[in-house]
């Protein structure tokens, strides 16, 4: 009789510990790993193809953030007051880069959000070998939240601003030669 009463809380405690451990393990894992894929070629690149790449072939939510710029961050026009920037492994794993030039296959996805974090769209940069000499082979695209392409290629409005940081390979937010540590 006594054993029965003792065993129950032990079992319950064991179950609780198991649950907590599994939670720790789950939260400890940062989710599925980013798949390794062949970089897009200049011939195939397009807004739709790039969307396919960042949603189906290598989901951008598996990407890392810029070191020191993780998660939601303050932003400004034209990307909205709040953003999150996802950077794929071909780029983030190579940091720091000296000279500061992103390798081919680099993809940067920026979620554009309002102050209350409502998603307004995605703006994406992808480096495609041989795509465009004037923009260091960067391909720009803008999507509505449902993935509809609203601008693509060497989009003027994008280039105007990003060209201000040509010495950082058109990348505004993170200095490529900065040591992530």
């Amino acid at each position, binding site marked *: 009789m006594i054993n029965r009463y003792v065993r129950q809380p032990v079992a319950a405690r064991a179950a609780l510990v198991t649950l907590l451990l599994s939670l720790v393990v789950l939260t400890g894992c940062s989710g599925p790993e980013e798949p390794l894929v062949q970089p897009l070629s200049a011939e195939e690149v397009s807004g739709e193809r790039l969307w396919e790449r960042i949603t189906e072939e290598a989901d951008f939510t598996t990407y890392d953030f810029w070191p020191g710029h993780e998660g939601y961050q*303050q932003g*400004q026009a034209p990307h909205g007051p709040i953003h999150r920037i996802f950077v794929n492994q071909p780029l983030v794993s190579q940091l720091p880069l000296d000279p500061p030039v992103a390798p081919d296959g680099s993809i940067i996805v920026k979620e554009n959000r309002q102050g209350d974090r409502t998603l307004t769209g995605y703006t994406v940069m992808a480096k495609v070998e041989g795509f465009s000499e004037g923009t260091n082979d960067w391909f720009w695209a803008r999507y509505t939240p449902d993935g509809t392409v609203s601008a693509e290629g060497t989009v003027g409005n994008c280039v105007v601003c990003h060209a201000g940081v040509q010495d*950082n390979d058109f990348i505004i937010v993170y200095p490529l030669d900065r040591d992530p540590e």
Partner: protein
Amino acid sequence: MFSSIQAKIVTAIVLVLAISLGGATVLSLQNQRSNLLEARRQDVANNSSTLNTSVRNVMLAGEAPIAVNLLEDLSEAPGFDTLEVYRRDGTLAFSDFSTMEEVNANLGRAIFAETPRRNGPPLVSEELDQVVTFNTPRVVEDLEAQQLEYYFPILNYQECRECHGGDHFIRGVAYYEVSLASIFNRIGTARNTLILLYSLMGAAVAAILVGLMQRIVVGPIRRIGGVVSRVGEGDLDVEARVAGSREFETLSQKINSMIGGLKERNRLEIENSVIDARDQENRKYLDNIAEGLVLIGRDYRISEQYSRYVETLFATSEIAGRSFAGFIYPDESAQQERQELEQFLGMIFENTSTEMEMIMSINPLSEKKVSVGEGDNRREVIFGTNFQRVMGDDGSVERVMAIFEDRTDIVHTQAELESERERYKSDIEHIATLLKTGPDSYSEFESSALETIAAVEVALQELPTGEARNTLLRDLHSLKGTARYLEFFSIADLANRAESLLEEASLGELSQVVARMREEMESLGAINEKFRAFATSISEEDSGHAALENFLEHIEKMTHEIAGELEKDVALKVDNELDELPNLSKLQNPIIHLIRNAIDHGIEDQYQRLTAGKAGAAEISLSLKESSVAYTISIADDGAGIDFDAVRRIGVEKGVLQSDQEYSEKELIKTLFSPSFSTRTEITDVSGRGVGLDVVHEEVRALGGKIGMGTRRGAGTRFTITIPKETAQ
């Protein structure tokens, strides 16, 4: 206090309320604060974006001094505690002319005049470095200081580069400092209001709960607890009120049914002890009462409950479990009786609408005689039985109680009393008769009666047939007649019954009747003895005359009675010359005998007399005379006279006379007086004397006298007794 259920439940509920409401308040306040902060952040971001665009456009219009004025004006505006613009290196913008000079140099002309410079310390901040590094705005919230700092990068857009050159991406940083105190004040006010509200609510809820608990839980619990404690103290006359919530109703009902059960148990215990006591009392009663009680079940068997007296009464201890009918009628052959008794029991059990009084009227055991015991102890028991119904709770007859009453002694005593009474009655009669008759005249009757009784007793051993039977019948008939004449009616009755029983050959009853006759005769004899002594003393003293007168009077009466019985018309003519007759008592019997013989046998019946040409009225004359030497008593009738031929023939038949010898009338008369002739028989066809003549002769001779007889066929017979005076004295 916290041990009471009320306090526990209320405390628990208030705690839960406090925790949940407190949690909700905290969450709600946090949410509110974060919303407010977010809104403030957006405000700042929007304002900064607007300012950035405005300043840029003013600058692009080449109106840098207006942009400076605008900045200064806006920094005074409400909502901004601080608004400053710093260069990339942290120095205050517009604090010197270096930028203006640079622009003038880039454009190759001086487009701005020198306006007053602004003064202020440089901005030294890690945040500034961050903004310059990542080219993005930054927000720093110092909640303790209730302050928000916003760093906004002012970019070197393409259109800016004509004046400022393209060697840098960021022109500077706009710095905003915004107080959050109003937000925190609002949050604090809201918090206080909520705390007050929730405290009031909690108090109200607690009060309501306490009230409800009191009413719904504590009250009923106390009430039921009170009932239970009273039950615990042994008071079973309480009842839990069935009211309140369903659970308490159920509890109350269960407690009430428990109390009911306890009551029932108590009642049963009391009942059991009462029943035990009653059983013991019953057993004691059953063991001691002098009455036979048995209880009969519906299977008509006797139960264990019966009184010990039954064992005594029926001389057996095998009673319980036996069929009642089998117990009463143990003989296997009495199936009919058993069946009838069980039918009777069935009526008692089943015909409950019939009164017991009615049923008892056909009680087969109202008086029953049985034989009980074995061997030498075997005896007859007469018992009466009464039956009573023992009703069950359902109104049916559960058992029947049979009550035996031993009536053996009562019945015997009653019989004895009855016979005693009869004896007494007959004694009285006898005394009366003897008084009338006189003791002497009884003697003759007695000897005759005893002879007859003895003859019947002989006949009981071997039933006589033919003539002997006829003789006996005649004797009985004669005894009956004489007894009646003498008014010994009990003897007359018994003789009459004996006569009938002899004819029927019912020897058993005849023997009883004869025994009774003998008893009667003994009783009569005893009375007579006493009476004789008394009568003798009277006559010896001075009543010789009176005795003779009395005797003669009685003779007349007797003659009249016997003649009446025999339907003969007889007149007694008495011619008495004596004053008194010595030895009257001893002479009475011979005289009565001879007169009776004369009436009965001497006198013909009316028809014969008419045929003979005689007068219808016969005459018997009794004359008493005396001479100097003797007393002469003569009895004469005018009847048929002695048939000497018949006497001769009978005498031959009886072996008294020789058939081949001639006998004179004198000799034949002598034969009549001989015992061998006359004591044995009275010959029917002899219309003369026969019965007891030898006795008469003997009695006369005992007095020293003689008896003579003269007879003439068709004319009559005369007996003459002569008693010499010397012997008579």
